[in-house]
C-alpha cells in the first residue's frame, strides 16, 4: 500500500512542480473551470430575476445544489481524469506498456495524471456552499458533516465508476468516447435538484445512471430534506453496484484485449 502511495505521490508532485513553473498555465486551468461553473450560476441568476422559486426551490437553494455538485465531481476530476484517455490508449495499442509492469494497469493509468484544473470546481463549489448555506438557518452537527464527507467521497466514487464503465466499452467499440461524452452530459441533470425534471428523467438518473446519488441526495441531507442514514445506505449500495459492474467490464475487456491482441 505504501508503495502505491509513493508512486502516486511521485507523479502528482512532479505535475505540481511543473505547474508552479508554468504558473500561467496553472492559473488559466483553474480560471477556465471557475468560469464554466460561473456561467451555470449566471443562468440561474438571470432566471431568478423573473421568478421567485423554481419548483419550490429558492434561488439560494438552487445555487447551493449547484455548488454542492462541484465537490464530488471535482474530486473525481482531480484524481481520475485520466480515465478519459482509456479509449485512445486502447485504440493505439498503448495498454501494452501498462500490462508489462507488475502493478495493476488501472492504477497506473489513474496515477499518471493529476488534473489541477479541477481545483477550480472545488473552489467554486466551496464558495457557493459557504455563501448560500448560512441563509438556510441550519446548524449541522459534527456527525452530519462527517456523514457528508463520506457521501461526497461515495459520490466521487460513483462518478468515477460510471466513467470507467463507459470508457471500458472501447474494448469492444471504437465509439465509446462519444458514449462517454453523452453519459457525462446526462450528469448535467444532476446539477440542479432533480425534482424539477419529469419523473422519467428522475428515474434515469437515480436508477440507471445514478448521478442523483452524487450530489442531489447528499445535498438534500444537508438541507434536512432527506434522512442521512437511509441516503448513506442507498448511496453505498449504488456505489457497490456501479463500481463492481465497472470493474467487471474493465477486467473482461482487458482479458479480451490480451487474447485478440493489438
Amino acid at each position, binding site marked *: 500500500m505504501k508503495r502505491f502511495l509513493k508512486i502516486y505521490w511521485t507523479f502528482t508532485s512532479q505535475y505540481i512542480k511543473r505547474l508552479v513553473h508554468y504558473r500561467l498555465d496553472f492559473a488559466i486551468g*483553474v480560471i477556465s473551470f471557475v468560469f464554466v461553473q460561473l456561467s451555470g450560476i449566471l443562468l440561474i441568476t*438571470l432566471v431568478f430575476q423573473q421568478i421567485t422559486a423554481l*419548483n419550490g426551490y429558492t434561488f439560494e437553494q438552487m445555487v447551493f445544489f449547484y455548488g454542492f455538485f462541484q465537490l464530488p465531481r471535482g474530486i473525481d476530476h482531480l484524481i481520475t481524469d485520466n480515465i478519459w484517455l482509456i479509449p485512445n490508449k486502447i485504440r493505439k495499442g498503448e495498454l501494452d506498456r501498462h500490462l508489462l509492469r507488475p502493478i495493476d494497469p488501472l492504477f497506473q493509468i489513474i496515477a499518471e495524471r493529476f488534473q489541477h484544473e479541477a481545483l477550480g470546481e472545488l473552489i467554486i463549489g466551496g464558495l457557493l456552499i459557504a455563501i448560500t448555506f448560512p441563509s438556510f438557518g441550519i446548524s449541522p452537527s459534527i456527525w452530519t458533516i462527517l456523514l457528508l464527507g463520506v457521501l461526497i467521497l461515495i459520490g466521487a466514487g460513483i462518478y468515477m465508476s460510471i466513467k470507467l464503465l463507459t470508457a471500458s466499452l472501447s474494448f469492444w467499440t471504437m465509439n465509446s468516447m*462519444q458514449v462517454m461524452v453523452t453519459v457525462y452530459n446526462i450528469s448535467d441533470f444532476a446539477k440542479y435538484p432533480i425534482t424539477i425534471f419529469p419523473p422519467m428523467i428522475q428515474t434515469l438518473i437515480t436508477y440507471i445512471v445514478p448521478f442523483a446519488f452524487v450530489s442531489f441526495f447528499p445535498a438534500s441531507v444537508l438541507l434536512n430534506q432527506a434522512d442521512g442514514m437511509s441516503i448513506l445506505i442507498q448511496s453505498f449500495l449504488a456505489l457497490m453496484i456501479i463500481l463492481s459492474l465497472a470493474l467487471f467490464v474493465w477486467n473482461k475487456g482487458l482479458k479480451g484485449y490480451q487474447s485478440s491482441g493489438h
Partner: protein
Amino acid sequence: MTLRPYFAFFKAYFLVYLAYRVQVILWFFTNALEIAFAMLLWAAIYASSSATSLYGFTLVDMLLYQLLMTLTYSLTDMNPIDALLDDFNDGKIAMSLIKPVNYELQIFFQNLGANAFRNVVLLLPMLAIIIGSQLLSKAGVVISLMSILIFIVSVIMGLLINYFVKFIFSNLIFYTEASFGLWQLQAIVISLLAGGIVPLHFFPEVIGNILRLLPFAYIQYIPVMSLMGRIGANELSLALWIQLGWVIVLGLAANLVWRHSIKNMKVNGG
C-alpha cells in the same frame, strides 16, 4: 488561382467523417440530449413562473430558440485547433509549407468538409423536427423566402467569424503553450457571449450593449433572432453590415496572426 485542390481537401474530410458515421450519429444523440436538458430546464422554469413570458420569450419561443441555436451552432461549428494541433505536433505544418498549396485555405476547407458532413446528419432531422412540430407557427414565426435567404447569408458570415476567432485563438495557444484548459475556457466564453447558454436579451441592458459590440453575438444569435422575426427591418440591415465588418476585420487579423506564427515557427522549429 484554382480552387480545385481545396475542394479535394473538402471532399477528403467529408469522406473521413462518412467513415466515422456511427460516431457522428452518436454525436447527434449527444446534441439531442443537450437540447432535451435545456428544454426540460426551461419548461420547469416557465412552470414556476406566473407570467407566460420571460424577457419577451414564451416557453414555445424558448424551445424554438434552443433548437435554432443548436442548429446554427452546428452550421457554424469549425474547429481549426484539431488539425493545427495534430499537424503542429507531427511537424506536418513544416511539410505543408513546402507544398504549393496555401495552408490556411487547406485547413479551412478541411474544416468545412467536416462541418458539412456533421450538418447533413444533424440538419435534416432537425429541420424535420422544427417543421414537423409546428413550433414555427406556434411561436408565431413566419418564414419567407427573404428571411431564409437572409438567414443563409447571415449563417455563412457567422461561420467565417467563428472560424477566424477560433483560428486566432489556436495560434495564441501555441504561443503561450497554454493548456487545453484555455481552449475549454474559450469555448465556454464564446458560447456564453454568443447566446448559447442564455439568450442575449436576457442580460441587463448595460451588458447587452457591450455584447452587441463584440463579434460573438454575430455567430449564432443574430442569424437565429432574424429568422425568428425578432429583429426589425432597420436593425437587421445594420446587423448584417456589422457582421460583414467583423468578417473582414477578423479575416485580416487571422491572416496577420498566422504569418506571425509561421515566422515564429521558422525561427524556433515547428
